[in-house]
């Protein structure tokens, strides 16, 4: 995988780095991957650059991504489905992201957005988790879905029911 490059304060190209980090919040250990880069440390009191020491720095976009990852970790810790769980489920039963969105009653891109950016709402994440963990619920939603033709309904239902048997 190609590494993202960033410019340091002195305009030198540097790699975007990744590291697993954790944070305790309301008794939960939230673990996720954070992105950052290294640049010379700045003393926050004096404003002097220490060219003998580097420390973690974050661009605005990196902070944005890290906050999303943190919130996603929090939602998962509180019972929401993780993006990888959703992807595994879809792969196993050969359901496209847009089709799963429609079956669950979301707009077409919801599942795809969650898979790419993480769960943004705890109730949504929990509903998805409940459906992934209980195929009888998702089977029922398939039967009730107005946007799938009967052939498609039968096809997906068969794949799900094979597993249940």
């Amino acid at each position, binding site marked *: 995988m190609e590494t993202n490059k960033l410019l340091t*304060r*002195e305009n030198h190209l540097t790699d975007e780095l990744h590291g697993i980090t954790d*944070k305790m*919040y309301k008794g939960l250990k939230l673990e996720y991957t954070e992105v*950052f880069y290294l640049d010379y440390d*700045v003393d*926050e*009191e*004096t*404003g*002097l*650059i220490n060219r003998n020491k580097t*420390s*973690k*720095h*974050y*661009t*605005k*976009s*990196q*902070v*944005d991504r*890290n*906050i999303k990852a*943190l*919130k996603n970790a*929090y939602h998962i810790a509180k019972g929401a489905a993780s993006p990888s769980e959703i992807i595994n489920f879809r792969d196993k039963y050969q359901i496209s992201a847009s089709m799963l969105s429609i079956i669950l009653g979301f707009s077409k891109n919801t599942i795809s957005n969650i898979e790419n950016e993480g769960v943004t709402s705890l109730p949504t994440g929990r509903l998805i988790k409940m459906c992934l963990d209980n195929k009888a619920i998702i089977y029922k939603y398939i039967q009730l879905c107005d946007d799938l033709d009967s052939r498609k309904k039968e096809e997906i239902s068969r794949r799900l029911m094979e597993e249940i048997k």
Partner: protein
Amino acid sequence: MVQLPDTPENSALVQEFLDETRRRISNGIDITFTNKANEELKDLALDFNVEVADIETAIENRSTENYFRGIDPSRKADFEVCAFSATVGKDNVRIYLKFGLEVQGLQILLSFNHVPDYPMNQPFKNYQYGD
């Protein structure tokens, strides 16, 4: 970090700092976060749903009235550093906001954005020059 006394000259110094901050942001310079600022924003994000954009807006909207401490008049440092009081997010959370402007470059470096540990006096607040 020193707190500049309330004089027209010092107010002009803070205004100059804020004007330069806004100029850099409007020219497309993004704010850089130190490790501490990144850690603190995590707490604000989880507790109050504060986002990066809220911090950027707070920085852009500072006025001399929000000044708390900073700016070394000797100007010998690599960064001019200044601290302000700000309210952010939908809950209007009051925070201590400290950032620096690189003197020989263009970086805007945010070092603190946290709920203050003690009341912050704002020496330039309600000061009307020439009135």
